């Protein structure tokens, strides 16, 4: 449990947000041309990093906007928050 600095609303309790998992997984441009292995990679395989990772969050009980976050999953420390479409910070 931690406090998240929503880029639109400011600091709010984590329980107001829902996590959308790993960020920057690009939707395939030509889904019809994907092999089964590539589909599995896109749909299911995750880095699941213990340490600093990039993830998507949604302020579900607030502005309901999506944004990205850089968080250390080993201690829940948040390193950066940035809007969708913005370049991920170098960490």
């Amino acid at each position, binding site marked *: 449990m931690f406090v998240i600095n929503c880029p639109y609303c400011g600091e709010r309790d*984590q329980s107001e947000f829902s*996590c959308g998992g790993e960020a920057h997984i690009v939707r395939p441009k030509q889904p019809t041309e994907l092999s089964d*292995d590539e589909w*599995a990679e896109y749909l*299911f395989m995750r880095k*699941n990093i*213990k340490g600093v990772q990039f993830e998507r969050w949604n302020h579900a009980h607030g502005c309901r906007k999506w944004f990205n976050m850089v968080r250390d*999953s*080993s201690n*829940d420390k948040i390193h950066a928050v940035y809007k969708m479409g913005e370049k991920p910070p170098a960490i």
Partner: protein
Amino acid sequence: MKNKYSIFSLIKNAFSQHENWKQAWGNPEPKKEYDAVIVGGGGHGLATAYYLAKKHNMKNIAVLEKGWIGGGNTGRNTTIIRSNYLWDASAGLYDHALKIWENLSQELNYNIMFSQRGVMNLAHNLQDVRDLKRRTHANRLNGIDAVWLDTNQVKEFCPIINISQDIRYPVLGGTLQRRAGTARHDAVAWGYARGADAMGVDIIQNCEVKGIKRNGDQVEGLQTAKGFIKTKKIGVVAAGHSSVIANMAGLKLPLESKPLQALVSEPVKPIIDTVVMSNAVHAYVSQSDKGELVIGAGTDAYISYTQRGSHDVVEGTLKAILELYPIFSRMKMLRQWGGIVDICPDASPIISKTNIKGLYFNCGWGTGGFKATPGSGDLFAHTIANDEPHKLNAAFNLNRFVSGDLVDEHGAAAVAH
């Protein structure tokens, strides 16, 4: 077994004030090379080593544990054992485990305090009723004992439940598996460790794995905190840290690791003599032999390896508990903790070979791995020894995420994942 436990050994040791009991397992330094190495000294890993030695005659093997054995999820779960799963593949897997549980204390010569006190799953809305009735029928077709109880029968079986129809989630009935129950989770790890050690397995604690060495697509050994260990077969049973080990071998798994919480109350006199689980409100409760209420809560909805868990999750569970059991309103909670569970997209486990030769994974048990400990160890040992899955774990391969043949117990299992 050298130091067999019995009434006679108890009497004999009483004469020396119980000061001469032998250590139940050794504390060896790792050898340079093993025929197989198991990564992870929890219940599943120790059981795997035990069955590798016992059924497949592989004695030159080691179990590597980062901390101390049974200190991870084996010692953090709510000790519930049941096999009332919906799908045939899951029913086969979990009932295989339950059948081993029924004779495990005798087999290990170690009292794991297995108690078939029954597990009841409550229905709180019409869809729950339909789902649970369907599951009862599916269980019986698979030879698993299951009965449907109406609201009054639920009350009769567990008199402290509030069956008022005016509460937010009223009890509309439930299912009961009488063969289900609980076991002492630490004793399971200790019993398997003792059994494996007696057959020559090296149990190496405080030995974290730092890397996996590959030669092309074949594993060659492990970098560990105690140096390099050569081996051609590595079985990884690292629960929440499975992805961490997989990344060392350049492999990605379909897992997300999240904290799952549990808590216990102050000890009180016997008040609940069964296990009651409630899917819709995600609250389950039983009472330990010490008298503590053992309460299971849910997972946090984000990846974390912190072994803590959030307060709002516990709050939600306790609200549900209080509505169902108003008698607990003045109970004090004594301890709370979290364990890191590795969750698969279909909420079923993976007991499988990988595309790297000699690397095997037993993971993805999510929130419900304890109940499967003996069966999981047995089937994983078979998979490692023969380089082929047993027919009971064939469906739980890694390739199902490519083929789409998922074992979708999500929401179909007795408790929400």
